[in-house]
Structures are given as C-alpha cells and as structure tokens.
C-alpha cells in the first residue's frame, strides 16, 4: 500500500488493511527478535555453545537501562553508551572465568557442562534480580512511549520503529565488524574451523571471550530498544529467549544474516497468523516450524553445513 492511500482504501479493502497492519506490527518487533537471536548466534557460531543465559543477559541490560533512567535520568536511547561496554565486560568475564575453564577441563568439543553452566547462570542471575529488585514490573514512561504515526492508514508505533532502525544499524555495524576488522575475521575463522584458525595463529580462547562479550553487549542495545515500550521484570528474558531459539534454527545456526532474516520472518508470522487466526496459534506455527526445520533442513535458511 502506497503512501497517502488512507482511509478510503482501508474501507474498500478492510482485509488488506488488517493484513498489512499485522505484517507491519510483526516487522517492527521482528527487528528486536533478530537482535536477540544475533546475540545467541554469535556465541553459537564461534564457541559452539547454546547460551541459555542470553535472555537473562537481556534482562540484566533492561534493568541497567531502567535504573539509568530512574536514578540518573538517562534516556533509554542513550543508555547503550554505558550498558554496552559494561555488558561486554561482563560477557567477556563470564567466558574467560566460567566457560573457558570448563572447556579446558572437558574433552568434548561442545561440552554438555557448558550448556548447563549457562542455564545455571541464567537461574542465578534471575534469582539475584528477584532478590535485588523484587518481582515488580517496572516501566519507563517517555513522551514517545505511546506515540504513533501513520503510513497510508497503517499505524506505526514510534518506539518500535526506532527499534527496527536501531536493530538494522546494529546489524549493519556487525556486518562491517565481521568482514572488515581483524578480530571480526578471527571470530569468523574460529567459527568455521577452530583448529585451522589456531594453526593460523589465532588465539581461540581470546576470540571466545570477545564473542561472548560482543553477544552480551548486543543485549544492551536490545534493552534500549525494548525498555521504552515493554516492561522490565526478572523473568522478562524468557518471553524473548524461546523465540530467539526458533529464529536461530530458522535462519541457520551460526548464520548472522540468517538470524536477521529469521527475526523478521518470525515477527511477520506472529503478526499475520495472529490477525487471521490467533496469537496462540501463531506460537504453534512457530514451534512447529522449529521442529520441521530441524527435521527437514537442519542448516536453516541461510546456514552452511558443517563438516
């Protein structure tokens, strides 16, 4: 639907209008989904570990963003200046001091203990948050929180739109990082083949530290996007983590463009199925897709088969 094709068309084709509104709503949140899935994929792509604490790191980022706003009056959109380096440091340390020793101890290439460690970390952080901040639902009230604009009769939420743009910019930045910088290339090389990368002189454990840090720092950006229109709660990560798993499998495990595409697709499926059938059915479709892709095309849409 073009610009300016407003109410008259909406009346003529109410179905079309609803469809577009559902699609747009899905795309808007899909960008944020993609960002969280990207975080999951960076770790999976290099460290080859499924990080169950990804949602919890998002929660940590959201609490930081909230407190920066509540105590320091920092606008959530400025908070990444603080949260991104802090989360990077946190992720770096988690990998260096918790995950790396397990890697050093275990014989397996993808040790089960690391997976359990991330799960333990998630539970630890969630319960710590409950202890520190209680189970209150915290919300940030901003001028733009409820603001919307219209494009051809389609309502677009301003904070969600900003979120989509920010996710896009972050994705583009990551692309440049992975293709143009030494450390970025080193991360990809390690992801492709750890042993060869090590033979080429790449310090794989340092690469892991950076990957983990990078993945955690992305949650700072996702938090800045979400906080203006969502709520903050110790269990908030759960709502997003499951979707991130679906996205990672859909787009391809370890594939960055796959995560971006998968995020948008999942958002749109939610939006469209939710409009025509039910939000609950959309979840069934998503998790059905999850199982189906694992069975039929385990590499996902853009994943590469690994030796």
């Amino acid at each position, binding site marked *: 639907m073009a610009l300016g094709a407003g109410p008259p068309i909406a009346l003529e084709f*109410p179905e079309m209008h*609803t469809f577009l*509104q*559902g699609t747009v*709503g*899905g795309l*808007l*949140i899909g960008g944020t*989904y993609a960002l969280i899935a990207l975080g999951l994929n960076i770790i999976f792509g290099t460290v080859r570990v499924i990080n169950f604490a990804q949602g919890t790191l998002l929660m940590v980022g959201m609490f930081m963003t909230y407190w920066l706003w509540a105590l320091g009056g920092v606008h959530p959109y400025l908070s990444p200046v603080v949260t991104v380096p802090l989360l990077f440091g946190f992720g770096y340390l988690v990998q260096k001091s918790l995950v790396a020793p397990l*890697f*050093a*101890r*275990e*014989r*397996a*290439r993808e040790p089960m203990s690391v997976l359990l460690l991330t799960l333990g970390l998630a539970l630890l952080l*969630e*319960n710590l948050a*409950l202890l520190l901040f*209680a*189970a*209150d*639902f*915290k*919300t940030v*009230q901003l001028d733009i*929180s*409820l603001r*919307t604009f219209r494009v051809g009769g389609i*309502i677009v*939420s301003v904070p969600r739109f900003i979120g989509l743009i920010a996710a896009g910019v972050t994705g583009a930045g990551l692309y440049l990082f992975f293709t143009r910088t030494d450390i970025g290339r080193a991360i990809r090389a390690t992801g492709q083949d*750890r*042993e060869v990368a*090590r033979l080429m002189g790449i310090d794989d454990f340092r690469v892991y530290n950076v990957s983990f840090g990078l993945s955690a720092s992305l949650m700072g950006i996702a938090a800045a996007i979400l906080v203006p*229109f*969502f*709520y903050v*709660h*110790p*269990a*908030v990560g*759960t*709502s*997003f983590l499951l*979707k991130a798993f679906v996205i990672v499998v859909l787009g391809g495990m370890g594939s960055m463009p796959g995560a971006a595409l998968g995020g948008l697709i999942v*958002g749109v499926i*939610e*939006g*469209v*199925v*939710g*409009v*025509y059938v*039910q*939000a*609950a059915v*959309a*979840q069934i479709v998503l998790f059905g897709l999850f199982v189906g892709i694992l069975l039929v095309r385990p590499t996902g849409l853009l994943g590469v088969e690994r*030796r």
Partner: protein
Amino acid sequence: MTFGFAGTLVRGNAPKEGVMEKQRGTVLLAAWLVSAMFALCFVFAPVLAAFAAEEVVIGILSPLTGPAAKFGQLQRNALTMAAEDVNNAGGIKSMGGAKIRLVFGDTRGEADIGVTETERLITKEKAHALIGAFQSGVAFPASAVAERYQIPWMTDGTVDKITERGFKYVFRAHSNDSIKGATLVDGIIALSKRFTPIKSAVIFSENTEWGKSVGDKQKNFLERHGVKVHYVEHYPYASADLTSMIVKAKGLQPELVIANSYLGDALLITRQMSEQELRPTVYAAGGGGHLQPDFLKGAGKLSEGLLAATNWAPAVGKSVPWIKRENDRFMARFGTPLAEDSARYYQSFQVIVDALERSGTTSPKALRDAIAATNITDINHKAMMVPYKQLKFDETGQNPNATAMVVQVQGPEYRLVYPDYVAEPDAKPIWPYPQSK
C-alpha cells in the same frame, strides 16, 4: 575432528590432577560439616522439642519467583504478619498455646513444581493444612495432592472446577470465576443502563487455567444480557508482542473489551490498545494483573476508567474499620497495601486458625471437619478480611455466600463502584473509558 579431539585432550589433561586434588579437599570438608550438623541436630532436637508446645505447621504454596512473583511475595508478607499476630497473642488457645509455623513452597507459577512442592510440604515438612496456590492452573493439580494425602487445602484460585471434583479436603472461602464473572458483567450492565448501551464485546484471556475458565464465563453472562460477544481469544501468557490480537479486535469495533491477564500482559495489552487505537466505550478486566498497584504506575493515564472485578479492595475498609486498620499496619510494614489475592490468603489462614480453635487438634480428619463446619457471620471476625454476609462451606467445599465487587481506576486508586452496598458514595463512575474519546 580427530585432530581437534587430540588438541583438547592435551589441553584438558594437564590441569585435571590439580583440580581433582582441590575437589577432594572440598568434598572432605563438606562431608565433615554435614556430619557435624547432623550430630548437633540429634543432640539438640529432643531438647528443643521438650521446651516447645505443640506446633501447627501451615504450608503455603505461592509463586515466590517467576513472572508472578510479585503476587507471591505479597501473599507471603500477609501471612507472615497474620501468623505473627496469632503467635504473639498466645498461639492456638485450645491447643495449649500451640504456635503456628509457616512453611513456604515456591511454585514458580508452574503446575508441576506446585505439585512437587505440595508433596514436599506434606511429606517432609509435615504440614497440617495448606493454602495455595494463587494460579488456578497450579492449585488445580496441587490440591489433588492434598486430597490424596487427606490434608486440608484452602484454595486460592478462582477456577470453579477446583471445588467440583467431589473432594473432601479442598475448600474455597472466596468467590469462584462464575461469581466473579457474573459480578463484573452485572456491574457493567448496571452502569451501561445509566449511561450508554453496550452491544458488542471482545474478550482477551490468557491461555492458562484461569484465563480459559473466566473468559468463557464472562461470554455466557454477557450473552445472557443480550451483548454480542465476537470471540474470546486465549492469547499466550507472558507474550512479547500482541499487536496482531489488538488489530484483529479493532476491525470489529466492540463497545466493550474485557482482558483477563496477569500483570506483564495487562501492561502490554493496555499500551498496545492505545497504540493501535482500539478504543472501546468500556475497558474492563477480570482481575489479575489489572488490579496490581504496579499496573497503575505502568499504564499511567491509560488505566483511568478501567473497570475490574475483584474479591477485595482496600476501600472495603471504609465500611469495615478493622480491615482498614489491618491494611494500614500491613502498609506501614511492607510499603504496599494488601491486594485481592493477599487478602484472600489472609482470609484462608484465618479460616484455618478458627477451625484449629474449634478442633483443638491438628489431626487432619478433625481439622477437616472443623473447617467444613465453619460458620462465621461476625463482620469483625478476622476471617472476614474479605467480607460476606456469611462464611460457610457447602458440600463441594465452596463458600456459597461469597461475593465479588467491581472497582474502577479513578486517579491514583481503585474505587469501589459496584455493587451499590459496597460502592463508595464519593466515587462517581467514569463513563466512557476516557481513551475512547
């Protein structure tokens, strides 16, 4: 791959010895500590028991962590205060001043955990009576465990069928979904007769036990009043986004939107309704999250004019002074007023205390019979925290005289607007929902 394997092997083996050494030391120390503690327990337990009078153990099932932890923590606070009051006043008098000890089980809001926690409270903690579990989806299976062990269970949770399984040990002092749904609909219809008619409605209901039960009840009551209910949508609990559900409803232009949600979803739905310009004449809620003080903070001006069904509101204290005093004490100590569910937990606890005083024993059968024989009509009795004409139990275990109320968000608080006998005289109903203008 073989190559990689060898690499990790070499890397992995070297530090392993040292780690093992260290672990052995830690294990030994831990084992020593544990045995020491056991020894101490054996020495002191009989001594302690000799000094203490008989003790009553009441098990509390609440979501102390997880998405609904906010509710669970208030429930724990309410009962902590109530139990301290009983103990400070000399315990259960008919049992020689037996003290009450509360033991808490954290359900995390999940049915399977609720069931295992119930088992634990009964078998390990030896609870004499239980209260739980806030979420009906948890209370439903967990109360069946209590029934199996024949331990009295005071239900918190509104799903009707919890007390409709022919159980002997399961009771509910407060109103169920049918009563609550009927009260909300009656209230809306009564107000609409004073203002503008309601012809059609859409109901959003979260997809766990409570939402599923209450949504369909409301639909039936609305249809009985001639309101066309387009549909009841059971959306996924703790959703990340609900744009599509709101957009779909908007296409139908309903005059009434009812949401049955826990807090996170309540905030999301309220905000997304505003974003997507879904503007009903009446925005109402079955209870749950819409009744939490945090909802008012989070939804801000969007909450103004919301109508909600509740078992209880602090404003009840305006007509029953002791309830106001009790709520003020609670507020002074914990910083927030009691809410509907914490008031219900308080009530259930007092029903058990009342039964203990009459039975004079913690024997499950006698205690169960005493609860079944409850008959309280004195509004100043502590079990009347949620006040009714009469508190008693029918053969299913439900209090047939339980009633619900309708509150409306007006400024920073919930004001009682229906039924007329509890309505605050100075609370003038807001109509329509201000966002619809």
